[in-house]
């Protein structure tokens, strides 16, 4: 029987993460153009009471830029993870229809997994002309194979489960079997898969942006902040890299923890 404790923990995690995300999104309205405001008299100022997390080379407040970067990463990561999960689920479902389609999907999965991730990301983002949309599509198109492989295996196993076959023998339609038996079973996998993809998506968005194939350098994305920080780290301006990096790490760990607890609860 399901124990209430993991579900309670997952619910608490979900509420806390949800509140943080809502706060992050709401902060963008409150911030206004603060992340872009330059103060040339306070260039590369270290963390202090006046400049909480310090400022960058153009005197822009790092706390505001980090918050804006996190919000941007959240949107990019969420959309890419959702798209990726939908691709994975659709292809896994397609693979169960016939052995030929299964072979085709398996080939596609193996091919994509065999190509170095970052090269594919760069090629797709470059082909699409860069920018937010290109990053989302590039990350979504390259991140589905691992999840698709898991979902495909689950679906194949589940379709052979006696209770699924018996459901058909009880006169239930394919649609009923799909939404009554298969999808509820796959939903936790999809949810956890999407949550696990999310940190990957954020990190790859940052990597693409860092390499110049992603978001515009004018946008306060975490990848842009980290790329900027690289130039100043040797000068002792540690806060430029530490705070955005730490914020990204906390976000990734938060979602990783949530996905772990949801997996236990579901």
């Amino acid at each position: 029987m399901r124990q209430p404790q993991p579900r309670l923990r997952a619910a608490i995690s979900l509420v806390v993460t949800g509140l943080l995300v809502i706060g992050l999104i709401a902060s963008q309205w409150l911030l206004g153009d603060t992340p872009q405001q330059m103060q040339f008299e306070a260039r590369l100022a270290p963390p202090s009471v006046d400049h909480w997390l310090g400022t960058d080379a153009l005197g822009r407040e790092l706390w505001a830029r980090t918050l804006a970067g996190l919000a941007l990463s959240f949107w990019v990561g969420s959309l890419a993870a959702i798209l990726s999960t939908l691709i994975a689920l659709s292809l896994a479902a397609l693979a169960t229809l016939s052995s030929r389609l299964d072979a085709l999907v398996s080939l596609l999965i193996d091919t994509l997994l065999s190509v170095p991730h970052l090269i594919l990301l760069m090629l797709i983002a470059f082909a699409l002309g860069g920018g937010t949309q290109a990053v989302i599509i590039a990350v979504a198109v390259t991140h589905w194979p691992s999840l698709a492989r898991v979902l495909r295996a689950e679906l194949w196993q589940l379709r052979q489960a006696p209770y699924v076959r018996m459901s058909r023998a009880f006169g239930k339609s394919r649609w009923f079997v799909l939404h009554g038996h298969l999808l509820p079973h796959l939903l936790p996998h999809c949810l956890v898969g999407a949550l696990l993809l999310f940190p990957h998506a954020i990190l790859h968005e940052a990597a693409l942006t860092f390499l110049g194939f992603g978001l515009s350098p004018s946008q306060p994305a975490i990848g842009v902040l980290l790329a900027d920080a690289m130039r100043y780290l040797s000068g002792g301006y540690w806060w430029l890299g530490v705070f955005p990096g730490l914020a990204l790490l906390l976000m990734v760990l938060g979602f990783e923890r949530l996905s772990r607890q949801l997996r236990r609860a579901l």
Partner: protein
Amino acid sequence: MLKAHQLSFQFSPGVPLLQAASLTLSAGQWVGISGDSGAGKSTLGKLLAGYLAPQAGSVTLDGAALPKSGVQPVQWLPQSPELAVNPRWRVAKILREAWTPSNAQCQAFGLQEKWLSRLPQSLSGGELQRVCVLRALAPEVRFLVADEISTMLDPITQVELWQALKQEAAQRQLGVLVISHDSALLERLCPQRFHLSGGQLTPW
């Protein structure tokens, strides 16, 4: 009448499990099948219920092929009830997947009201098997393939389950194929019995 005619089946090439096995099950008839492990008893049961397609021969119901849709008139009951139910569904939903049994039928099979709100994991094997057997007795069902359904149950639960099934089958003239290792059980339940060996059915 449920008829298996010259059924042949193999999982691996060159290793035939069933070789031209024939069997007839009439309404209200109880037929027993015994055999060693791996002899193909369950495969025969699944072929009769339409879960597997024969590689040669045919399974017919009143001279026609088994229907492709709707509640299947031949229902298969597996040994492990845990595998026969969706672990995410409550017992009430499981029970009513095929049809809605009356309170009297629930009582006859010893189902308790308090089980209905539970998840299957919280029921014992015997309790869950009762649920599965009753679930399979939809009005459209005419034949049952009981594949070792009482093997994992204690003697008292076995007796209760078979008594309830006997009563229901007699009322509705259900034909029942009992697959078991237990010769004594088959002797008690089934006037007609076969031993499956080498892919062939031999009366005993």
